[in-house]
């Protein structure tokens, strides 16, 4: 009996932690709804989870910082693919500006 209750407790814990297989989630949800003991365990586990979430930092990003990061990422893209952004006329111009050969003395 005790083992059975322990197993149920683990199952509820896994349901709250979402570590159960997705196929079992709905089954366990129904069982919790129907059993008072499990409902109590569920509410305790849920409270514990909410408490843990409060301990995890989740910084909100200000609009200024977001646009700063966006600009930085754009600059990274530009730096990496700088060569490819040249138009065909620029490429021709660059090519024509290079000397065809060099004479070394």
């Amino acid at each position, binding site marked *: 009996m005790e083992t059975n209750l322990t197993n149920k407790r*683990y199952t509820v*814990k*896994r349901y709250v*932690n*979402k*570590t159960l297989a*997705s196929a079992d989630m709905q089954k366990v949800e129904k069982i919790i709804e129907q059993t008072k003991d499990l409902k109590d365990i569920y509410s305790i586990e849920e409270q*514990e*989870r909410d408490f*843990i*979430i*409060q*301990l*995890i*930092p*989740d*910084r*909100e*990003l200000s609009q200024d*910082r*977001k646009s*700063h*990061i*966006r600009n*930085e*990422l*754009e600059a*990274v*893209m530009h730096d*990496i*693919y700088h060569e490819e952004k040249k138009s065909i006329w620029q490429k021709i111009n660059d090519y024509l500006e290079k000397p065809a050969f060099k004479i070394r003395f």
Partner: protein
Amino acid sequence: MNRTEILILTDSLIPRLNGFCYALTANEEQAEQLLIDAFTVYILQEKSFLAINQVDFNDKVDRHRAKKLLLKELLASCFEMACKKNLSPINLKNVASENIDFFKLSYLQRAVMYLKEVAEYSISELQEIFGLQRHQIIEAYYNAKHGLLGNRKIMTMDF
């Protein structure tokens, strides 16, 4: 998918990525730099880039799939970068009192905890991101939980 489209997708992912980087560094400037470095490395890795190359940007489902994949790959890149970089040790005096226990956890534990509880990723998704076995992710998750709750409650491990 071209580079502009990747930038558009990345734009909407910046808040989540920044939150993740902050959870790893506990410092806004370092988090920002980590995100930029991870993005740079990701873009330089042509293989990852090619994985989402076959996406039709005009198709909503395709775009959503690409966004999810891009987020996972960038999260993986941020984590890898944080582990490789010699980040300065976290100064717990600058951290909010309720977050001190969180920043005492290891990189993996913090990363798993943040993505599991805040971003609501499943264990299998975390496996993909960190390239680890299921039991390793669950172990990190429960150890992190134990570290957070400390002496408040003795946790039982269930794998």
